[in-house]
């Protein structure tokens, strides 16, 4: 069913935004959870040109496959990243060797969309201990790529697609200037989305 935002939380959802140049966001429906028949559960946030990236990840001993995937990728290089592909509905955690393969397949499916030798990071969120319905996901990733755009709605839809038990999408954007002479007159932007409502006591590094 379509997820409605409680009245009390609607004030936290932006109705417009100012988003960083050269970044795009998109979402698509995969149906990762059997019960999800309608809402997007795949998100893609990418830079038009490959760029540097960094990540902090959980220190939990039972790191999920996508966490291992990101750590390994970023350990080998911090540059040449296209962006990140995310699925909600299944965490791909404690899923054995197949889980690692699935995380790599998600990245590969996203990489293929860009026809470049780039790298896409992977995130998953949802139930622990279940295998990803990987075909549904890899089929949906090109659709998320097709849906990429730079408008507020694109960003907001991507923020919605990463939600699990969240009652509202969490999206912020801001523009800023810097006082340093090298940046005089230039305006920069920063945007971010986050998700989380339960199992929240992060300890990332």
């Amino acid at each position, binding site marked *: 069913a379509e997820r409605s935002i409680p009245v009390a939380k609607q004030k936290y959802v932006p109705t417009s935004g100012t988003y960083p140049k050269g970044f795009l966001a998109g979402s698509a429906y995969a149906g990762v959870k059997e019960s999800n028949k309608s809402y997007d559960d795949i998100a893609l946030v990418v830079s038009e040109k490959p760029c540097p990236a960094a990540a902090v990840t*959980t220190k939990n001993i039972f790191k999920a496959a996508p966490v291992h995937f990101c750590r390994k990728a970023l350990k080998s290089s911090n540059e040449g990243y296209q962006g990140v592909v995310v699925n909600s509905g299944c965490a791909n955690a404690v899923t054995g060797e197949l889980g690692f393969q699935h995380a790599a397949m998600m990245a590969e499916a996203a990489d293929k969309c860009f026809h470049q030798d780039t790298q896409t990071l992977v*995130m998953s969120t949802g139930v622990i201990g279940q295998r990803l319905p990987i075909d549904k996901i890899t089929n949906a990733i090109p659709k998320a790529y097709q849906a990429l755009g730079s408008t507020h709605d694109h960003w907001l839809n991507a923020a919605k697609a990463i939600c699990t038990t969240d009652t509202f999408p969490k999206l912020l954007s801001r523009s800023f200037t810097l006082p340093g002479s090298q940046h005089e007159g230039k305006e920069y932007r920063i945007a971010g*989305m986050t998700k989380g409502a339960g199992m*929240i006591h992060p300890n990332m590094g």
Partner: protein
Amino acid sequence: TLLGIVCTDAKIEAASMYSLLQSATERSFNCISIDGDTSTNDTVAFFANGAAASDDTPPLQNSDDYREDTAAFVKVFHTFMCDLAKLVVRDGEGATKFVTINVTSDVSMATAKRAATSIARSALVKTALYGKDANWGRILCAIGYAPGIMDSLEVPSESPDHTQSAPPQISPDRTSLSFIPSDGSEELKLLVRGEPETVDEARAKAILEMEDLEIVVKLDDDGVDSGLTGTSDRASKRHKVTVWTCDLSHEYVTINGDYRT
């Protein structure tokens, strides 16, 4: 699970992005707690494509806007990360309250963080907040058993038959506790240097009716120089940590009792 994706069109060299992200995470996402459970998937990724900078613009880390914690870009980034993290707490499962916990200590940042985190994780504190009860006893209790604080009080000596006391990280008679109302009205002092205050229950309830609440704990209150600014030796030794949390309601149990693997 917590996920975060942050993108900027500023130009930052890859080599310095991790330390910037780590430092900001330490004061933002690593300072929130909804239910005290650390997920297997928590990840925050940061991308900087430099699209708003011209080719001859040097990367930010070579400028004064980046080098120190107080530099302009670092402040923008830290504030942004904090604001994102706070949104997660606003959406805590079943939460009805957004609680900011500020703890100061003149012992160490770790001491302040341990105390703040213990308060934020305490089911009894969180249910009291849900019940609009100014139950400062539960808050003090949570500070007193905080891992790393309690454990440090007794350190085994060389002799297996004896223990020796380590310098205490917390002294009850230097501990004060207040609620700061979100409407800007006067703070409600609950405990001053270990002595309980007479609490106006009606006012306490009114403060706790509000969605937002700030709990201030001073572990270093000797009755002078309570400010965090200034150049005094005391002020320079003071460490302040902010942790954000929410209350714990029936709804949390309903949501998680229904969630299925």
